């Protein structure tokens, strides 16, 4: 195991799921064994990017949390064909998409500490190099736990005034939880020289490095969350930003 990495954004719709899925695929393309956990139990979505349909999912993270099955049984091999050659693997631990399951989790809650045990077991059972966690927006208990157990936290934000405060809160909370490595990724960055300005400003105001900057991409927007854009468009600037993030995760 190299690292558990949480990818978080204070608000939803920032591009978190796409970032997690594609960085996982790009790491697998480099021969890594990568686990992806969807802890956004209230609004799961990352499975579609890997092409997993609702009917394919018989067991989910929910089942593990309710004690219905060992965590290994809720993980699916979703290794994309182009990544298999070098021995890379991607395993997805999806959250349940069934409306009833979501309601039940919302109403009854669950033992958050089980997440930690589950991640440890899963990493061992699948000999993972990385476990990437697609967190729930905001700073709920399970998100705090994900951050607390992570070796690395990537905070994703857009250059938008609505993101600045939440990002600051997240970073300060992560500092208090003593996450060993903290960094930012900007999605839908303005591009050109404005990027340099933005990067400098973020780094001085937050006191943490900007690891990657992705511009808005019409091509990615059209793909939506239906496929792994990073494997389809290796030269798109967004893919290059994901590669930069993968590079960053690979450096200890």
């Amino acid at each position, binding site marked *: *195991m190299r690292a*558990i990495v949480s990818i978080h954004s204070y608000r939803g719709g920032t591009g978190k799921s796409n970032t997690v899925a594609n960085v996982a695929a790009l790491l697998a393309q480099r021969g890594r064994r990568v686990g992806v956990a969807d802890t956004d139990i209230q609004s799961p979505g990352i499975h579609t990017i890997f092409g997993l349909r609702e009917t394919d999912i018989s067991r989910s993270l929910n089942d593990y949390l309710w004690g219905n099955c060992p965590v290994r049984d809720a993980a699916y091999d979703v290794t994309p064909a182009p990544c298999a050659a070098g021995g890379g693997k991607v395993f997805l631990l999806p959250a349940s998409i069934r409306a009833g399951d979501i309601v039940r989790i919302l109403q009854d809650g669950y033992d958050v500490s089980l997440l*930690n045990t589950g991640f*440890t077991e899963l*990493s*061992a059972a699948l000999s993972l190099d990385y476990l990437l966690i697609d967190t729930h927006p905001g*700073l709920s*208990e399970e998100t*705090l*736990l994900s951050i*607390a*157990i992570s*070796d690395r936290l990537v905070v994703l934000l857009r*250059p*938008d*005034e609505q993101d*600045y*405060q939440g990002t*600051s*809160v997240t970073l*300060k*909370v992560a500092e*208090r*939880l*003593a996450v*060993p490595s903290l960094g930012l990724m900007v999605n839908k960055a*303005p591009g*050109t*020289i*404005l990027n340099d*300005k*933005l990067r400098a*400003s*973020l780094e001085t*105001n*937050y006191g943490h490095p900007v690891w990657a900057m992705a511009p808005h991409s019409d091509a990615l927007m059209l793909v939506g969350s239906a496929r792994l854009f990073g494997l389809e468009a290796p030269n798109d600037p967004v893919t290059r930003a994901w590669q930069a993030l993968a590079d960053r995760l690979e450096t200890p």
Partner: protein
Amino acid sequence: MRWRPVLLTVGGGALYGICNHVLGAISLPGSAVITVRPQILFPQLVGLLGGPWAGLLAGGFGNLLGDILNGHGGTYWNWCIANGMLGGMTGWLRFRAGQTISTIAAFSRFFLALLGIHTIALLFACTTHFAIFSGTTLRETLLDWCLPAILSNVLLTFLLLPAVLLVLKYLQPTLEVGLGLLMLYVLVGCMVAAGVTGAAALTWTMGNASELRAVDAETLVRLRERVTLDLFRITGAAALLLVVVGFFASLRIAYAILTPIRSIMKAVDGLRRGEPWRRETLDPVASRQDELGTMARLLQDMGDQVRDRETELTRQLEVLRREADSKEVHRRVAEIAESDYFKSLQAQAAELRRKRHESR
């Protein structure tokens, strides 16, 4: 580096003298007075690369060496001085480190200056020759001797030197220089072609015209020399005149094309460096109806967008600066940090990470 001018002087001067001896003076067919001396490039190149002194010495002593080898000794010292003048004055145009010709203005200035230098040097040689050695009238000296020599040397220089300078990378193949080269070669080429066809026609006519059968051979040769000389003087002078006019014409054309391109380049560069956006600097180009106009209008749109995004970003960054460390942030962090769950998490976090790392 200090040896370079010395080597240039000795090497260039020696080559010049030896070529003067070996090649002598190649005459144009049909006229003994019109000589072709490609070696004239040597003193000029020494001047351009080594400076005035190197050019002066290479020209003067190179010519003296040739005269000695040809058995004239120092008799024609005035020609040595004239050759020294050619090399020395060309030295004023010397290429300093990193210096190149990249604009049509520099290109024109350079070749017009060479024309002037050749003229001065040869006028000096011919008039002193007339004053010291006499022999012919001043008029004959100037028209039958000096003028053809100037034309021959200058045209040869114009044809050969650009190629050498391109190889040595002193001429930069910019659009402007390309235009100048095109003009130079087309005009000089046309006139050389006119001269050569004229001479060929003359040879043919003189060999075949029945009217000339009765004329004796010696007269025919003299007549032919006379006509060839006139032909050369007329086409040569016309070529030079056209080239001079051509320089000004291409200067105008170059500016007509390049001024809009330059202002577009300047605007792009300003955008790249984040200078304040001034779209009106492109208005003159944008009002053109051609491709350059379209390009300028597209660029104005782009500049507007970049400016808008920059204004927006500047506003955003002001918010960021305010929010990143605001009271509200600290309040929310404190709120989270106060909860029992957070406190226990905080206590366990390091332990959880450590355990996991041990268990792998």
